[in-house]
């Protein structure tokens, strides 16, 4: 499906897809992103993705007509999402996921059922935002949807796995935050020493694997790179 084009300023344009968030939409966004980059590589400063949007920062003011033409001619074609699946080990212990017990109780399920519900699905990475290295994931089971906290926590440790509204995410660095903490991963999610500073790409998927607190401590002491499943 073709997006609608809006020029916000002479150097920022946004493409918007008026449809539900899905793998199909993400595929169209990524296909369109690569088409744009192919056609206008020299003129593009950078592109940014949202759940239903693709935004372009141009190096200088652009002619709207030329881009409009490309938008109208866009055919998603054969683009497919990557098969890559990442394993993210998570300790769902009380000390790492301080809100899990209360959340499970509020949903009338056991903590084990909660952990199974959260760690069974494959989550799709749509884009990075909020914090450097923070992945916007799609795929949280409906049962686990929980409104954000009214008063955000002042400090959330790096690697914390949390739920906020219809999303689950991992805090890549220490930060304040309004999501409910359900666990913590020993992996490094943002590394300024490497380029790119993240290991997963939009379109790839990840799966949470429950680990014990002991395994978590071991992985903190002897860090391992993220593993493909």
């Amino acid at each position, binding site marked *: 499906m073709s997006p609608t084009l*809006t020029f*916000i*300023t002479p*150097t*920022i344009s*946004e493409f*918007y897809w008026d449809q539900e*968030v899905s793998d199909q939409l993400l595929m169209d966004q990524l296909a369109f992103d690569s088409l744009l980059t192919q056609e206008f590589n020299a003129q593009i*400063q*950078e*592109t*940014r*993705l*949202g*759940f*239903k*949007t693709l*935004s372009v*920062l141009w190096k200088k003011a652009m002619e709207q007509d030329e881009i409009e033409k490309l938008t109208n001619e866009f055919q998603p074609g054969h683009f497919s999402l990557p098969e890559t699946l990442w394993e993210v080990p998570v300790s769902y212990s009380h000390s790492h996921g301080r809100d899990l017990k209360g959340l499970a109780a509020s949903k009338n399920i056991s903590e084990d059922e909660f952990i199974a519900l959260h760690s069974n699905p494959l989550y799709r990475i749509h*884009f*990075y*935002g*909020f*914090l*450097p*290295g*923070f992945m*916007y994931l799609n795929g949280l089971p409906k049962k686990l949807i929980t409104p954000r906290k009214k008063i955000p926590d002042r400090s959330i440790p790096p690697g914390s796995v949390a739920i906020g509204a219809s999303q689950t995410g991992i805090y*890549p*660095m*220490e*930060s304040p935050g309004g999501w409910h903490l359900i666990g913590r991963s020993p992996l490094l999610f*943002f590394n*300024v020493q490497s*380029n*790119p*500073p*993240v290991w997963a790409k*939009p379109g790839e998927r990840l799966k949470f694997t429950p680990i014990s607190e002991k395994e978590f401590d071991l992985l903190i002491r002897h860090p391992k790179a993220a593993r493909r499943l």
Partner: protein
Amino acid sequence: MITGSAFVEILKCGPGTTVRDKGRLGFALYGVPMSGPADSLAFEWVNHLLKNDPNSAVIEISQPGLSLRFQQPTQIALAGAKAKININNHTVASFGLHQIQRDDILEIGAFSAGSLLYLGIHGGIQTEVVLGSRSFYPGITPLSFFKKGDQIPVKPLMIENKKTTFSNVKWDVNRYASESIEVYPGPEWHLLTEWEKEQLIGKPLTVSSMKNAMAIQLEELLPNQLPEISTAPVYPGTVQLTSGGKLLCLMQDAQVTGGYPRVLQVTENSLGNLAQKKPGAIVKFELMC
């Protein structure tokens, strides 16, 4: 990596003193903010006066109280806010070039106009380049803010008593006097009612004390019925309207995506003027079409 061997020592420091170059371009896809200078005109001006590379890192000062001791002779340039500037207890001009001798002490006092002062130095600040930029950002650069006792690496001055530019062009602090802030309609502008649009454009709005490098909050509330949006890209200059009616003007350290409706986009030209406003200052959005 740190190059050169000269240092400037921080004897005293107010909060919110950071290093800025043009920032991190091309890293937004990993969630990394731009972190350029809030007032790009003042930033460019100091580097221009010093004949530095245009992307040379400078110090952005948002509070009075900074005191520096130079361990080497050098040349500095000031632009942006008007402040009381002393070199070795002698008051000097708030704008333009100054020659610095070994052990000179530079003190930044009260700001009388504007709220961000740019201090450029010959050759640029030499703190570590991380992801293509020296601009401070928590979790990316080793430092988020300068503090007392820090040593700022700089380039040693190669030519003794480097000739100054005999430029009489004066920094015009009146550029910050205008209340008018130029804006474009944001992506969610069309969702506002006519009444809501009228409240946003041309009406006096007040800069609140909730003001930092991430965002400037306005005091007035605009009750609205806009739905939250699916998380979408935002930029420095994006004006968000929250469900509680708060107006947030995002600045250079803002996150790269957001979930609040984006009702306006401040032009690049006006963003520096907005950044220079003090809490309590009046601004009026002027719509460009």
